């Protein structure tokens, strides 16, 4: 029996953000924007959704008088990502 894939993660941009964040300790918003080639608006919306799901922490602060947004994956996020990959693998091996 296949488990449903997490709808929060099964979206291109949110999955890309989570894959980047799982590999690093923390990353700036600008880094995520550069790597995903997404627009700032779209990326903000998707980051907000991940934050509401408790998958990432978003820290807003100032650096040299400019606003800076730092994103960090949470333990819940790591668990959800691992579960997502496990389910994905079970889909592919059963095919």
């Amino acid at each position, binding site marked *: 029996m296949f488990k449903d894939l997490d709808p929060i993660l*099964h979206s*291109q941009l949110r999955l890309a953000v989570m894959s*980047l964040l799982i590999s*690093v*300790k923390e990353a*700036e918003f600008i880094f995520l924007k*550069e*790597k995903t080639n*997404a627009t700032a608006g*779209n990326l903000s919306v998707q980051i907000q959704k991940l934050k509401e799901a408790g998958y990432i922490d978003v820290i807003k602060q100032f650096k040299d008088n400019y606003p800076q947004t730092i994103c960090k994956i949470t333990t819940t996020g790591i668990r959800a990502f691992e579960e997502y990959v496990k389910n994905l693998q079970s889909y592919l091996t059963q095919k």
Partner: protein
Amino acid sequence: MENEEKLSQQDSLRLITMMINKAKESYHDTGIGAIMWGAVIAVCSLVRLSEVHFDYQLPFDIYLLTLVAIIPQIFISIKEKKERKVTSYDDPYLDYIWLGFGITIFLLIHISNNIFGEWGSWANEYRNVTGKQAPFRFGEYVSPLFLMLYGLPTFITGAACKFKPMLWGGIFCWICCIVAVYTAVKIDLLLTAASAVLAWLVPGVVMEKEYRLYKKEQAQLNV
């Protein structure tokens, strides 16, 4: 990247792999610190070698240059930290390893200076009484101790960052450490200079080149 595109299972796995690789490729050290320290240690060792070989003494200890080099290093570290858009899991550990290395080096300098002070007077007395040089020369064993320490953080950084020039540089320091135990002070100083060049200066130049290339690629992507 649009969010609403339908994802197949294969697409998802491909996307995860691509993003993880992109994250891995984004770690780029400027290499400036490594270049500076490689050059400073090599210059100090070679100047000391010339002092020993040509039998002269500078009015100051050339190794004081290492203390002066701490000032630009602080500025380099602050600048690099400011420019860093992403922090890897290894970054804080590597920072602590290099900080610990710096502290250990200065402790070793302090200890060896104290031993020199105590042992020097004993060696002079031995020479006055017997008319011969003391059979044990502490100075012969100082360089291997430093080379042993140089190898440790260099090897760990090279292994953690999967950066072969530094990994081999660390191993080279340890090989020089073993050799320096059996060689005279002049050769020890030459080995120290060679280690500084191969463990820091050369990897630093490679890092700096890679960093410049990465910056150029990023600038082209953002046009």
